[in-house]
């Protein structure tokens, strides 16, 4: 459940803000309430892989939850006795301006972003001071306009160009492994994992 919350809380918060047009406070309450209820009632256990992808199921559960909350006009924080999750809503709020497309498309996009962000964080924790990560950070995480050439990056890090090729290959391989690890942790089953992996990679 921890991995699931880590990957889904931002997509959930932004979806509530964008699709349901909720204020910051309401969206925070609803996000906390949604996960509190999911833990309390174990409603993700009701997932049926024949009906939809797990990601779609989570979004439908969320929409049903918000609709129910609206109907009963209860904005009380759910899950009495459960401490609020430590979620950085301020960061999510500043990222909202980058969302585009329909609420469903935005939800899927945020889900991808969450998975990659978590994997990059894991990679950074693994080798932050390593030249391999520095090369990856400069080349793959930087802006396209300011992306250096391999030769420029080699000069910057004082290594041969072939080493840059090797560093990037290593970092991308590791990132791929970490993204798939995150995905496996939040997938409902093998088929869900395979079909999501198919959609996650390649543009």
């Amino acid at each position: 459940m921890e991995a699931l919350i880590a990957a889904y809380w931002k997509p959930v918060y932004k979806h509530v803000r964008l699709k349901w047009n909720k204020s910051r406070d309401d969206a925070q309450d609803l996000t906390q309430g949604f996960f509190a209820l999911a833990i309390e009632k174990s409603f993700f256990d009701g997932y049926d892989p024949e009906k939809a992808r797990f990601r779609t199921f989570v979004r439908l559960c969320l929409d049903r939850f918000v609709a129910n909350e609206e109907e009963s006009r209860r904005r009380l924080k759910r899950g009495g006795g459960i401490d609020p999750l430590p979620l950085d809503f301020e960061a999510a709020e500043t990222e909202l301006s980058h969302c585009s497309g329909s609420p469903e498309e935005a939800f899927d996009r945020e889900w991808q972003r969450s998975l990659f962000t978590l994997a990059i964080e894991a990679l950074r924790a693994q080798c932050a001071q390593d030249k391999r990560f520095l090369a990856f950070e400069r080349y793959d995480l930087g802006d396209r306009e300011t992306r250096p050439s391999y030769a420029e990056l080699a000069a910057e890090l004082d290594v041969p160009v072939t080493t840059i090729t090797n560093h990037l290959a290593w970092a991308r391989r590791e990132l791929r492994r970490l993204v798939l690890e995150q995905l496996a942790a939040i997938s409902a089953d093998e088929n869900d994992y395979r079909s999501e992996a198919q959609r996650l990679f390649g543009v």
Partner: protein
Amino acid sequence: MKFLDDDALDHLRKVIDEPELSGTKYELVKPLGRGGMGSVYAVQDRELDREVALKVTTDTEISARLQQEARVLAKLEHPGIVPVHDFGTLPDGRSYYCMKLVRGERLDRWAERNDLRAALRLFQRICEAVAVAFAHAHGVVHRDLKPENVMVGEFGEALVMDWGIATDIGAPEKAVLGTPLYMAPEQARGEASDARTDVHGLGAILYFLLAARPPYSTIEAPPDPLPRSAPPALASICLKALARDPRERYATAVELAEDVARWLDAEPVSAHRESLLERVGRFASRHRVVLSLLGAYLILRLVLALVP
């Protein structure tokens, strides 16, 4: 951490999916497509100086399945099945196999630009490739036949692709694999597959050629009705191939192809009991030249009789 904007996210999604080819004889040309097990790329074989296709797994855990597919393909020798050149592991740990690069387009796109008779002639060749796999390669069943898995080559040849979930006849099922909108009912129930499972898949392809859509909206229901424009005898052939009970289908892909051949030759087909009107129509179609000459002769006789 800095916010990962859409541009950076797309860049990462692309670069981490590319196969690592350093130290191999291959050089990446372009991605060709994605499937359940991984991606296919056009690559340049530097040693032989030719372009080939490389199928690479999504992750290292399904290497065994890719190897199984490569082995199945390696023992199928037929013009309708893509030959495999090599199998191995890339520096990034992912498995790959190298095969002939097929230049052409997918059947579903090709069918949009071609008439039904041309599509049916191609369909016969698809049946033949599937039949060969079963008869000559120790009972290999494809299990995922659909228009997206058939390529039409630049010379009009049909190539059956993606044998990733192919299995030997009667092999125990480990999981329900396949494409739900085309899947045979026994496959959806997780039961063992046989030649009739592929007959169902071929029926689903025939359905697509007649209706331009998959046969099922939901797997529990019978096929959606075919459009009224579908010739009745062909519709009967299609529905027999798609029968829910495997025993009511054609026993083999060859039998199915033979019935389609009969329809193309305006002969009666085994799956259809035709009405008198249909029989007359088929007779007229089959003897069009003779009937045209006879008609011209009768008109000439009539004209001559009326001329004083």
